[in-house]
């Protein structure tokens, strides 16, 4: 089959924070770069990030130290974050944040004119000894919006080529197994094109839509994970899903941790500030996994609020109208719209809600995608990943609030820098053959030829229900094994979706079918790996294995799609400039 081919030096799939930061680096370098994005870039999910970007810029506390941030992040990860990557993120972070200011990002300010920083969960001074830190740089509670628009603006200035509303379908590999680009569809015309590139960067974001209740946008369908798994590449720590403690009950819309950072706290039906029992020191600003579990236990033990006792309240009225309207204006707006509650007067009904995928495509700090061969890391030639789709791994088993935006810009930047250098040194590869392209077209061709099968909406609901009920905040072996069986049955039906409408012009039915197939790949990898990790660590909490098991599981999980097996990969404990942070009991 002969497709039109367009060729770039580097192609970035995804126009969110990570993708646009990588694109900016490459566009400035003069290499022919394109961003393929299924939505106009400022519609990407980075736009929904609220509270801020955590980084030791020394504004709130001039003595702040990136090593303290590193300590918090290692502890937050429950010790399976890679210490070399965390060291890189926390130390390079300030420079990357200042660059955002220089690009024009409208950060909130202190009286001294510096960037405003607020307290967030899991933050400390002096390696946990110096009390609560305030390290999260904020643009009111619209930090993601401010960051995403600034990056888009920076890319306009740098003349980046955007293929807006183009949908990436699958990876094209050449005869040597090197990734040489992707198949993509121009959504407006329906034309299918082979986008060839010396470097293909996945910055496709998360996949929170595998769950029925999520803070994630409709577009977060794990397209990059789906493409990688179908190409036979592994994913790492994919069982680690963060449930944000405060999604608006019923709507799933996120309420930033910054609310608790600014002094808000959670109460149960008795009006008790229950986090004092679960985390006597950090209280409401303990790690997100800890707070989410505490809320779930309050509800399970009958202390939930509302007629069905199925949520708790986030109380903020004591902060006063001025603080709420100046520091948290977006939250006031969202709460009134989605909970019919004005936080100035009443508490917001909240519940733990799927929020973030800690796992993803394993990479090094240069964004190069990795696999493991004979127990050794091996670079996947031509493929890169950064942002939520990647697992570099700075979040390990539990991400700290404010670290996702930092991850995006630090590793978007480092990926761009590495590719720039690699292009300068010269990248040679064998061009894809027609047979290589045909292989990448199998899935799309099958969908386009479908004449019978299930509907996307029904199958998606079924998938989301299984994940919500059987792979949620608390997990149990027999439940998960049952879920895995249900997923096995669902696979055939999702692979055989019926696309009734075969038209070309902006056919969203086609893209929703392709997205559902990606969601399925993420869900299956999550389920099988979660069942396999027989311990509780970070966000992965098992009723049947309640303790952390450092002897057997102080390691990354690796899910290999070809035989659906789960392996282990060593965590990096060798930072370059500081001593290793040794695992210890994780208390807040």
């Amino acid at each position: 089959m002969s497709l039109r081919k367009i060729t770039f030096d580097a192609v970035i799939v995804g126009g969110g924070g990570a993708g646009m930061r990588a694109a900016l680096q490459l566009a400035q370098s003069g290499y022919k770069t394109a961003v393929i994005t299924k939505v106009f870039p400022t519609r990407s999910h980075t736009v929904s990030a609220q509270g801020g970007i955590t980084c030791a810029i020394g504004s709130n506390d001039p003595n702040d130290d990136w090593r303290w941030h590193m300590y918090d992040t290692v502890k937050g990860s429950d010790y399976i974050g890679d210490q070399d990557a965390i060291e890189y993120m926390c130390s390079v972070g300030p420079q990357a944040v200042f660059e955002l200011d220089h690009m024009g990002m409208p950060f909130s300010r202190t009286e001294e004119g510096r960037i405003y920083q607020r307290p967030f969960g899991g933050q400390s001074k002096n390696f946990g000894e110096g009390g609560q830190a305030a390290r999260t740089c904020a643009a009111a509670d619209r930090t993601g919006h401010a960051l995403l628009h600034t990056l888009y603006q920076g890319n306009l200035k740098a003349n980046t080529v955007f293929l807006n509303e183009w949908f990436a379908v699958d990876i094209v590999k050449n005869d040597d197994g090197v990734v040489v680009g992707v198949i993509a569809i121009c959504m407006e015309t329906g034309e299918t094109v082979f986008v060839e590139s010396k470097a293909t960067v996945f910055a496709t974001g998360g996949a929170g839509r595998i769950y029925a209740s999520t803070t994630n946008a409709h577009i977060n369908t794990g397209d990059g994970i789906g493409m990688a798994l179908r190409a036979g590449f592994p994913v790492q720590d994919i069982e680690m899903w963060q449930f944000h403690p405060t999604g608006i009950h019923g709507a799933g819309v996120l309420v930033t941790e910054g609310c608790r950072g600014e002094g808000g706290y959670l109460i149960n039906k008795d009006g008790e500030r229950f986090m004092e029992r679960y985390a006597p020191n950090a209280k409401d600003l303990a790690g997100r996994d800890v707070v989410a579990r505490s809320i779930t236990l309050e509800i399970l033990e009958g202390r939930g609020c509302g007629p069905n006792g199925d949520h708790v309240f986030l109380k903020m009225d004591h902060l006063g109208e001025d603080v709420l309207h100046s520091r948290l204006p977006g939250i006031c707006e969202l709460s009134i719209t989605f909970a019919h509650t004005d936080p100035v007067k009443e508490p917001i009904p909240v519940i733990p809600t799927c929020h973030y995928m800690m796992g993803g495509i394993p990479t090094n700090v240069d964004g190069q995608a990795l696999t493991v061969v004979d127990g050794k890391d091996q670079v996947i030639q031509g493929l890169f990943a950064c942002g939520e789709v990647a697992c570099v791994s700075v979040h390990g088993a539990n991400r700290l609030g404010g670290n996702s935006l930092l991850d995006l810009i630090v590793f978007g930047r480092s990926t761009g820098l590495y590719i720039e250098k690699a292009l300068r040194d010269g990248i040679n590869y064998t061009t894809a053959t027609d047979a290589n392209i045909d292989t990448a077209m199998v899935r799309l061709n099958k969908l386009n030829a479908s004449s019978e099968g299930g509907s996307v909406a029904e199958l998606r609901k079924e998938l989301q229900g299984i994940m919500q009920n059987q792979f949620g905040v608390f997990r149990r072996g027999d439940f998960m094994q049952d879920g895995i069986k249900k997923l096995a049955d669902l696979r055939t039906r999702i692979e055989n979706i019926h696309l009734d409408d075969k038209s070309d012009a902006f056919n969203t039915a086609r893209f929703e079918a392709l997205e559902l197939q990606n969601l399925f790949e993420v869900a299956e990898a999550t389920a099988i790996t979660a069942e396999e990790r027989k311990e509780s660590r970070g966000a992965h909490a098992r009723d049947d294995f309640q303790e952390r098991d450092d002897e057997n599981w102080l390691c990354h999980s690796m899910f290999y799609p070809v035989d659906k097996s789960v392996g282990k990969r060593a965590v990096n404990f060798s930072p370059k400039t500081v001593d290793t942070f040794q695992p210890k009991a994780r208390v807040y």
Partner: protein
Amino acid sequence: MLKVSVYRYNPETDKEPYMKDYQVDTQGKDLMVLDVLELLKETDPSLAIRRSCREGVCGSDGMNINGKNGLACVTPLSEAAPNGAPLVIRPLPGLPVVRDLVIDMTLFYKQYEKIKPYLINDTPAPAIERLQSPEERAHLDGLYECILCACCSTACPSFWWNPDRFIGPSGLLQAYRFLIDSRDTATEERLADLDDPFSVFRCHGIQACVAVCPKGLNPTKAIGHIRNMLLSRAA
């Protein structure tokens, strides 16, 4: 059951656009318009819409809802079609339709790009951030929050007439956001770019933009400030 009337047009199969009626079971809930459309799409997946965040910050699902431009995801039925009245959904007006509720926003984005929507400061960047006082930063409030949904520009008669030459309320709001940023040094260059009969002065203060902005922003006010800057510059 709620009666929903939706603008349909598929360039491959339809000679001209038409309104199609549906019955949607809302179970009596005060759903957001986007939720209604998602329910409708379960029975008719051929309806094309744009949507992403579903919480009013990404700006994807601007559309004309019972005669008024707005974001489907933050417009409840009780506001759009009170007391069980039918819901009537059309694409945002004034720009070409690609399919159904999906419009071609090229001209809208072109006007945004025209105002150089990025910070310009040719002085060497400091080792830390450029300092900005809370008062200077406060000037950006009410401007930087724009989500580029195009509800305002496509509600503006001046933009309907001259979408190629009048920047439109959204673009001008962003123009002022950079003109007033204490860190930006290109004020003169920016004003010179805007100083013609069309870019700014086609605004006739109708304030349709203010009436529809889902983020509660006021482009007319920003345009007034730009006018004043242009007039002082000419004086």
